């Protein structure tokens, strides 16, 4: 469990992380999304105490990370791939970390096996490929058998095989009942593994939602309907949970909260001719782009801006 309260980090004039509030709950994969420079890495560094917050706080299992007697047992973190001394072997690297906690050598061998590093464990870590370096970083994160695993951009620069390995590992860790907190700027990657999403842009929280929630929020299940009598159709479709927008003089309506099938049936029942009826499928990628673009272009997003942006995406697609 990771809890951030009004977490803020300023570097001089620049605010890298701006009053973030979020909770990462156990037993799920939580994706931490945002464009490059959104403050994801800084937030993760604050979680493990490498950077001190300018204001606010972040706790891990109820306490600041540094206050835990065995921090590696609380959170295992992969921050940047090369948090190693290139002159030390993989085994020695892991062993020096294990020694600080009294973690037995048996566990070091275990994580080496789990990450498939047996063949290269005695080699200098500086000679490792990016993928191997990433595996070593993950081995270090797993060392204390922590309930929470935090990974910063774990698939960056990996080949397809490496990406697949990370993806399966994340799902496996969550199935074990662990809290997995993983950052990425690639929505497509997150969509495959994450249950919950925390989205940031320019250091601010844009969304704290589920994958389905994000799609719904972005008008993912909006149905576009063009008819002979939009005004009448509008009256017919209106009901609780249904939202309808449309410009006056246009024969098009945009309906959320109703399936295309239900709209078609309703129109047929009342003899309204339909010229067009289709569901606008907004991909997760588009939803994310739209959300973060808003954050960049218009500070303090308004509803009209969001609707306009949705229309642009819709017509472009």
């Amino acid at each position, binding site marked *: *469990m990771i809890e951030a309260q009004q977490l803020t980090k300023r570097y001089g004039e620049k605010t890298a992380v701006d009053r973030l509030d979020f909770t990462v709950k156990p037993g799920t994969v939580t994706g931490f999304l945002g464009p490059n420079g959104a403050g994801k890495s800084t937030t993760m560094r604050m979680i493990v105490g490498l950077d001190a917050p300018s204001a606010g706080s972040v706790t891990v299992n109820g306490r600041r990370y540094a206050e835990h007697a*065995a921090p590696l047992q609380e959170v295992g973190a992969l921050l940047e791939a090369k*948090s190693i001394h290139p002159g030390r072997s993989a085994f020695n690297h892991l062993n020096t*970390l294990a020694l600080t906690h009294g973690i*037995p050598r048996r566990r070091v061998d275990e994580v080496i096996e789990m990450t498939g590093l047996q063949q290269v464990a005695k080699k200098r870590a500086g000679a490792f490929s990016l993928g191997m370096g990433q595996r070593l970083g993950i081995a270090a994160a797993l060392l204390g058998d922590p309930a929470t695993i935090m990974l910063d951009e774990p698939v960056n620069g990996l080949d397809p095989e490496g990406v697949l390995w990370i993806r399966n590992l994340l799902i496996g860790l969550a199935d074990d009942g662990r809290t997995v907190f993983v950052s990425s700027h690639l929505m497509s990657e997150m969509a495959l593994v994450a249950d919950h999403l925390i989205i940031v842009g320019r250091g601010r929280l844009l969304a704290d939602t589920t994958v389905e929630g994000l799609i719904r929020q972005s008008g993912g299940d909006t149905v576009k309907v063009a008819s002979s009598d939009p005004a009448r159709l509008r009256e017919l479709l209106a009901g609780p949970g249904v939202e309808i927008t449309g410009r006056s003089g246009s024969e098009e309506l945009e309906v959320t909260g109703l399936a295309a099938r239900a709209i078609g049936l309703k129109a047929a029942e009342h003899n309204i001719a339909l010229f067009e009826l289709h569901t606008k499928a907004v991909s997760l990628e588009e939803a994310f782009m739209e959300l973060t673009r808003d954050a960049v272009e218009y500070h303090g997003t308004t509803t009209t801006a969001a609707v306009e942006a949705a229309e642009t995406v819709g017509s472009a697609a």
Partner: protein
Amino acid sequence: MSTATATPTDAPAAPERAGRPAYKVTAARVLRSEWAKFWSLRSSWITLTLALFFVLAFGLIRAWRFKANLDAGQHMDPDMLGANAVSLTLFGLNFGQLALGVLGVLVAAGEYSTGMIRSTLAAVPRRLPVLWAKAVVFGVVALVVGTVGAFVAFGFGSGIVSGTRAALTFSDAGVLRSLFMAGLYLALIGVCGVALGALLRSVAGGIAILVGVLMLVPGLVSLLPTSWQNNVSQYLPSHAGDSMYALHQDAHTLAPGTGLLVLALWTALALAGAAYRLKRTDA
């Protein structure tokens, strides 16, 4: 209320993690970790060997030249005229201190230049135990290497100059004190290196300051008027160190014990600066 509705709220938020081993970060464990870190790098072995080589080689060459000049009846350098077996054989300390000081800088600043510091501080987020452990580990290593170097250099070197006016043996007054102080001097310079490395977080910067303080500042101070020089010079780290292991004291050098105290204070100052930066600034 049926049991079915109660179940979700009763379900544990976190998975059952009973029976996990209770790990704990302790000062002794951080010390063991730093000890393992030090010996698992090839650069440590190479630089220590180099330091030992410098102490022995330059000491023995100096002793041999003294003997050769004396035998040949040649004119002798003024700084070698009043030499004794201790001052001749410990000549290599000037070079050994650079090797050990640089290795000390590497022990601390090397973690920053490589990125290892992130792993280190994630494991020990209280941070200060890491600095103390590095200082102790490297201080002890440098003490052993320095003391062994001083004793071996004197052991062979005193044989070379035996029978000359510089001749001394282990049993002569002050010799053992000089040799142990020589080891202690190198240990303190090594710890200074660790502190500078942690303070500056840069290998190049740490080495520059170390070399500057040990070699350039004494030269600059010698440009000052003599009356100032006599007051200032003796408190410089390198000169305080000289007086620790010199067999005889001049009018303007400190007593060995005072020299040790002065160098220890310099070291403590550097460590305090390093501790402040480590604790206060982001890694």
